[in-house]
């Protein structure tokens, strides 16, 4: 793979990529010490990119790749709390953990499948709404008007607020008896009968979680689309306007097509972040979410750290990773984005 990609990179790379690419072009009769200096210089130059990458590589290796490899090994073992001190002592069980995870006729597999489907629906709705709100807000704040700067800053506040501070406030608002949401819905608007609704328990918790997730997530879409819109040349709009295109037409014909490429990355990133989100349900519900809002990250956390079956938890994580890999790969192939990303 490496040789393959390397030639690929070579043919593709910008000719200006390396200002020192060929020292021989500056041909002149070299004195011997100069030649030697140049040779060590060349070696050093060849090593330089690797030296620059080394810290990043080492850290990714230590914090991401090694634990991941370890997690994969763990998923084949009967790893319970008794083996935490020496996890290699846990019995090798082959695919037992995976069988446990995917057997939908037994409680563990059934719960995992339920959580997975919940997460799929949740991610679809959350990413869709975040994208819609973010794009609309970016488009509407593109032309300048009074107070636009303040509004743009305000819209970024949910993104800037630490998760735990923001989500805990929402938990407060969703309280059954004393929360703002029920106060407005039941007491002030008279909706939904006299009995207050449970928002953090039961089926409604899905909608509570979705509200919080969208509130927290849409500003990122807003930020990215706003940045993308600033790349569109003003002349394009002026020319279109002179040709008689109105505001709505300019948005449809110029603005939206211009953010198309950005959307591909934006949607992928939003998808990955939302699907893997742990913080929001954890702060909103605590260690165990209601079944209707049992997102997969928290579900796996629960399986590993609360019921102490780390092997099964690891197997579930690996399955989750495989799913995300498949979706991402499929998405990149469909959008033709993979190559450009890799070259970025």
């Amino acid at each position: 793979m490496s040789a393959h990609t390397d030639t690929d990179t070579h043919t593709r790379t910008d000719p200006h990529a390396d200002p020192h690419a060929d020292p021989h072009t500056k041909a002149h009769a070299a004195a011997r010490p100069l030649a030697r200096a140049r040779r060590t210089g060349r070696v050093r130059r060849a090593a330089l990119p690797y030296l620059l990458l080394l810290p990043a590589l080492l850290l990714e290796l230590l914090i991401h790749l090694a634990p991941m490899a370890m997690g994969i090994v763990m998923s084949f073992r009967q790893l319970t709390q008794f083996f935490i001190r020496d996890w290699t002592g846990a019995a090798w069980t082959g695919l037992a953990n995976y069988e446990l995870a995917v057997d939908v006729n037994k409680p563990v597999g059934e719960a995992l499948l339920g959580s997975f489907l919940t997460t799929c629906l949740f991610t679809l709705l959350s990413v869709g709404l975040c994208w819609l709100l973010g794009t609309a807000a970016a488009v509407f704040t593109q032309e300048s008007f009074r107070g636009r700067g303040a509004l743009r800053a305000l819209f970024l506040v949910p993104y800037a607020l630490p998760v735990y501070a923001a989500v805990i406030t929402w938990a407060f608002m969703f309280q059954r008896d004393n929360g703002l949401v029920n106060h407005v819905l039941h007491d002030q608007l008279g909706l939904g009968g006299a009995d207050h609704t449970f928002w953090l328990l039961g089926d409604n918790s899905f909608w509570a979680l979705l509200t919080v997730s969208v509130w927290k997530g849409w500003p990122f879409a807003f930020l990215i689309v706003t940045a993308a819109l600033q790349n569109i040349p003003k002349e394009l709009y002026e020319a279109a306007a002179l040709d008689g295109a109105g505001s709505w037409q300019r948005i449809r014909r110029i603005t939206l097509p211009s953010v198309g490429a950005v959307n591909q990355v934006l949607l992928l990133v939003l998808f990955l972040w939302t699907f893997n989100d742990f913080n929001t349900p954890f702060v909103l519900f605590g260690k165990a979410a209601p079944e209707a809002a049992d997102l997969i990250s928290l579900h796996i956390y629960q399986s590993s750290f609360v019921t102490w079956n780390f092997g099964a938890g690891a197997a579930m994580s690996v399955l989750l990773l495989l799913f995300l890999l498949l979706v991402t790969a499929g998405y990149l192939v469909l959008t033709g984005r993979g190559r450009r990303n890799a070259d970025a």
Partner: protein
Amino acid sequence: MPDRRRARARTRSPLAPPPSFRVVRAVFLTLLTGFVLLPVYVMVTSSLKPLGDVSGRFRWIPSGLTVRPYADIWHTVPLARYFVNSLIVAGAATVCSVVIAVFAAYAVSRYRFRGKRLFTVTVLSTQMFPGILFLLPLFLIFVNIGNSTGVALYGSRGGLILTYLTFSLPFSIWMLIGYFDSVPRDLDEAATVDGCGPLGALVRVVIPAAAPGIVAVAVYAFMTAWGEVLFASVMTNDTTRTLAVGLQGYSTQNDVYWNQIMAASLVVSIPVVAGFLLLQRYLVAGLTAGAVK
């Protein structure tokens, strides 16, 4: 004459939005502003309510105002210590992450080398790892390193710093590559001709030219570290707890001090929100040149 004036008015602002557009825009932006501000309003007003008011039925207008919660938050839990821990962890993670990302991005942007493609793909793909997959293994690795070398990573700020800086690294490297690519190569070639080494060119030319991108990356790294909950709750002990975990201390078995929770939430949010709003201009500029291409 009136005809000519009308014609001039039309050519003067062909970009002016029509009334229908203005109405839709105003309605949408107003609703969205309300949605965004709602929790902020609740946070601010509830933090100023006496406990009796805040634990009763919700009221839009507080019955009485008090700043007591702001005094009490520091005693109910050791908030100052958590604050310092968070500052140290997030600050150190930010600095390290930015420095490392700058080096890596410079290498990818300016050099051809074997395995370059593999590196960028690997870095990008770490974005999709579920944190839960490496939480336990990382915990075990840290414990093992501690047992065999005496370097305390588990339970220490160092371990958390190390963990957090890798969280923001992939996105930072990715953004900076785009940003460095947009700095003309002629500039650092000129610097090399003037006698700078490659690192001299990086420090004297590329970094200053890419400053907005670097600031954007720093903001992102700081926010990532300041807001992380999962690893903070597993990897810290009593003395190294960060705000993310510490805030849970305001709920006791008997009482939930909602006014103090809101006051503390506001206090811990102010540094990041203020910093973010000050630097958001750079963030948009950084994204424009970096990730968004």
